[in-house]
């Protein structure tokens, strides 16, 4: 299958280390810019797009738009500022919607 790239959208401190590993690092100066870079990454065929937690709200529409497609996969990870648990929340909401029961409640 065709190879794709990994991209990370986040602030400079978070992204820099991953850049050394060959991850495409995107540091958007403002939210609109983040949305644009996200769309560019999608159309460029990135397989995995890592989004820093703080940008999730700004990218909500874009993330939802690709959520039913097989690629790209979007992962929400905490930045250097520490975790606020938003990544887990997103997946948890999806599970709740599907099952109607919070299956992840015991390990929260």
């Amino acid at each position, binding site marked *: 299958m065709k190879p794709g790239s990994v991209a990370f959208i986040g602030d400079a401190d978070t992204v820099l280390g991953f850049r050394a590993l060959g991850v495409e690092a995107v540091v958007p100066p403002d939210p609109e810019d983040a949305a644009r870079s996200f769309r560019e990454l999608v159309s460029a065929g990135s397989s995995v797009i890592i989004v820093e937690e703080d940008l999730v709200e700004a990218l909500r529409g874009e993330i939802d738009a690709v959520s039913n497609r097989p690629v790209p*996969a979007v992962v929400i990870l905490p930045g250097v500022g520490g975790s606020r648990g938003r990544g887990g929340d997103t997946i948890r909401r999806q599970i709740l919607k599907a099952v109607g029961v919070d299956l992840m409640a015991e390990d929260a």
Partner: protein
Amino acid sequence: MAIQARATRMELLHLRKRAALARRGHKLLKDKLDELMRQFKILLSEYLGARQSLEAKLETAYREFIFARASMREESLSDALRYPGAVATVTTSTRRVMNLTLPVFDIAMTGSYINYGMFDTTPELDRSLEVYSEVLPEVVRLAGQEKAIGILAGEIDRTRRRVNALEYILIPELVEAVAAIRLKLDEMERGNLTRLMKVKKMTEQRREAADAVLKAAAGRPSTG
């Protein structure tokens, strides 16, 4: 809203056929839902806890990196990381679960991430990059898992809506319409029967009256 149909035998047959089809569809969809749930549970059992452990690892990676950063001058750090020596590529293959296509990601890192001189950099940087390179494949795996869970969750939701729509709306409506037509047809049948009986009685009475007249005429002696 109930289904409006003319009370004819043809319509009855047609509606009965539709009800049977709806029941079969309902059964199939319910089976699909069960299987989706089973797959979902398998995925979930693999996934549970993966994110927490990854986030913990990521935190140590960030901490290492902050140490590395603190131990170096700003310019030499950005110089060292300006041109990445490694390339991370993700090959995506797909896996089918029911009617869904789920991605399977496989990451390959080529080249060395240590692509800078020893002179300007500190061992902390090496160490932090090592931690990063351990974390990255896990991130990619998590991406695949979360994607699969998301896709499956969406499909389960959709399928359940369909099952419920059939079970609680369409099938009851069809059954009700069939029953209504049956009642009407039966009523018409009874109406017909009583009408026939009535007609028969009337013709009999008429014939008896005519017979009586004839008999009376035959009994009287002719005066002609």
